[in-house]
């Protein structure tokens, strides 16, 4: 009986240890180029990142691997945007959007990146149009960037002063981001909810939300956003007539100084002048 039991255990373990099919060597090679590009991008070495992604793209194109092609093109577009080459980025995104071989999730991501670039270029209408296209492609398949897309739409609504739409989109975004486990975007959703509350002159709710966002941003070590959270909290505290406004501002200033961000420090000083000397 014991032998039978041992035999069954060995059989079970053997079944468990069956290896998944190995990745083709070329694809393995392309993957290494992608990872090399990501390392270079994190170091801020744009040209090296671009070269690595293009090498990965060449390999994926040689085996007509649509997913890899989409990933590499999106990464190339991101690097080109970081380099300030908007024309090249647009052409690269077109290659994603017009390639039917690329999965819908990547085409949705391409539309989202174009919307983001439009918003940065102060083209709110263009950004809204591309964001709708992104959501149409992403929502049915619940892609990972859905929360980020709703966040961007909430930012657009805030820019237009529509706090109701901003609040709705930020709640949808928070839910999607929690579902996909994206903590950074979840914090963004919380901050947008706080921004909307502040715009609606709901100081108590805004302060609570900024505090929650601050906790999330600290967990993911988002230094710049910690400063933004503290500035938001200072505004909300000022709205409530609290005495800890200066304390929030001093914390924000200290964090901005620790990362040598002069622009952010100036923003803190401007907020201080506005709130404290009023």
């Amino acid at each position, binding site marked *: 009986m014991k032998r039978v039991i041992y035999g069954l255990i060995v059989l079970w*373990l053997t079944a*468990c*240890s069956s*290896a*998944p099919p*190995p990745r083709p060597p070329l694809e393995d090679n*392309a*993957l290494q180029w*992608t*990872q090399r590009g*990501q390392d270079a*991008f994190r170091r801020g070495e744009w040209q090296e990142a671009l070269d690595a992604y293009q090498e*990965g793209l060449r390999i994926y194109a040689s085996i007509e691997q649509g*997913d*890899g092609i989409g*990933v*590499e093109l*999106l*990464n190339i577009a*991101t*690097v080109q945007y970081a380099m300030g080459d908007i024309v090249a980025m647009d052409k690269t995104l077109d290659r994603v959007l017009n390639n039917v071989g690329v999965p819908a999730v*990547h085409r949705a*991501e391409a539309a*989202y*990146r174009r919307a*983001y670039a439009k918003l*940065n270029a102060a083209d709110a209408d263009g950004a809204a149009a591309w964001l709708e296209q992104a959501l149409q492609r992403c929502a049915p398949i619940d892609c990972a*960037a859905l929360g*980020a*897309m709703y*966040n*961007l739409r909430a*930012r657009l609504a*805030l820019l237009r002063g529509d706090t109701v739409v901003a609040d709705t989109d930020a709640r949808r*975004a928070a839910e999607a981001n929690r579902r996909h486990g994206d903590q*950074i*975007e979840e914090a*963004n959703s919380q*901050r*947008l909810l*706080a*921004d909307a509350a*502040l*715009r609606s*002159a709901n*100081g108590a709710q805004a302060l609570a939300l*900024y505090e929650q966002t601050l906790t999330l941003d600290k967990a993911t070590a988002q230094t710049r*956003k910690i400063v*933004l959270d503290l*500035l*938001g909290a200072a*505004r909300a505290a000022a*709205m409530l007539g609290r005495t800890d406004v200066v304390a929030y501002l001093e914390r924000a200033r200290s964090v901005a100084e620790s990362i040598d961000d002069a622009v952010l420090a100036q*923003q803190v000083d401007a*907020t201080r002048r*506005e709130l404290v000397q009023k």
Partner: protein
Amino acid sequence: MTLLQDEDLRFRRLSRKIGIFLSIAALGIVITLISIGVQQKLITPKSQVFFVTDSGREIVQGMAVKLSGFRIGKVKRLELTEQAAVKVTLEIQSEYMKWVRQDSKARLLKEGVIGDTVIEVAPGSEKSPQIVDSNQIAFEREVGMAQLVDQLYDDVRPLIADVRSVVQRTDGLLKRADSLLASLPSSQQHLDAVLSSAQRNLQNLEKTTATELPATVRRGREVIDSSKKVVDSLSRTWPISNNIDQPKAGVLPLDSYGNATPPPRAPQK
């Protein structure tokens, strides 16, 4: 006897005529002497100043006293004082005394290398008061050629000593260089032997790398490939596979709040 008159008319008043003639001649001589005196500045008003020096060497009576190269007077006299010093009195034309001031200085110098010795008075500063008649003026001697040669010799003497020691050291070095050059052929023989040995070693190394190294590298690569297969296989095996994230081509994230500005200003109530 009328022809031999005692009183010729031409000799009448002869003594008077001679007197007039002699008077005119004497007047001419006096005028000439006065004009010479004036020209030689013998009768121009003069002032006296003096200086005291430890020696009257090269100073003589009548020696010219000059100011800015112009003669303004002369050495009137030299006297030996109670302290065995020499008091030299200068006679300077009064019209030039305005440039001789209390901070003026008289110097004994030679005009050129072989020129006359003169006393040159340096004009004083404008702020300094004019020197009074019969007062003392400062004095110094210019360094003479002999003194200059003495000073130069004093300066050059240590240099000559240094040069002598350098020459001695150079001699020593040259002797040592000679002995080194003499031993060079044996060193060259040693070097030749070392180079020959190194060449043989390099040839051996080339043979080794040409045959054994590629085989070693090939074998190493095979071992690495085999190891990779084993590790890959192991990494896909349960439960190890659960702890290893399978690498996947990922898209760079794009933060939706990436470049957002600080929170918006609340509306005014």
